[in-house]
């Protein structure tokens, strides 16, 4: 079966621009997670959805970051007024339910020039 997919695989943008990153979870998975991974570091939690609602957004670094999951499946991570420090790999994961194994997608590598 298909795994978690993320688009685009790479995104280059200019400082100050708006970007959207998309995640398609594994079919039937109710929980969806976003992480950010900088070079030489492990992934860092950003936000977690159970169904359509954000159950924990404590990892979002500031109010320029926002994520939605309107129909409980696909999710979009939105970054406004991008900064060079936002450059990183953005990872999405999904799990069948809570307290289950999280399965990761290939990530979107974001570069802000």
């Amino acid at each position: 079966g298909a795994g978690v997919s993320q688009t685009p695989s790479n995104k280059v943008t200019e400082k100050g621009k708006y970007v959207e990153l998309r995640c398609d979870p594994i079919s039937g998975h109710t929980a969806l997670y976003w992480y950010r991974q900088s070079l030489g570091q492990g992934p860092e939690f950003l936000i977690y959805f159970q169904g359509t609602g954000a159950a924990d957004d404590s990892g979002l670094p500031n109010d320029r970051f926002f994520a939605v999951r309107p129909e409980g499946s696909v999710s979009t991570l939105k970054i406004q007024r991008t900064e060079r420090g936002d450059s990183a790999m953005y990872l999405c994961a999904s799990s069948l339910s809570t307290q289950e194994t999280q399965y990761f997608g290939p990530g979107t590598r974001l570069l802000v020039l």
Partner: protein
Amino acid sequence: AQSVSQHNHHVILSEAASLELGCNYSYGGTVNLFWYVQYPGQHLQLLLKYFSGDPLVKGIKGFEAEFIKSKFSFNLRKPSVQWSDTAEYFCAVNPYGNEKLTFGTGTRLTIIP
């Protein structure tokens, strides 16, 4: 907040050598523990996990890990490594009832043929 320490940043071994990668976490309560692996050019994959029960867990490709609660450790082992084990290995933890995974900084493993 919980944290995860992986003290070995880069490990170089010859094929057939035995492997042990250290992982320590800081959290006083019940935790779920994971090892993920990232092969070159691929996304994060689950190697093994511990939720409860037997503290010695076996994963894919001959890997195992032992949860020692008194030492807050979850070290990864393999008796005889292969060249194909060359990858980055991440230890991760989430407290029971909390969906947020906290990762270590990773250990890069290089196997010399």
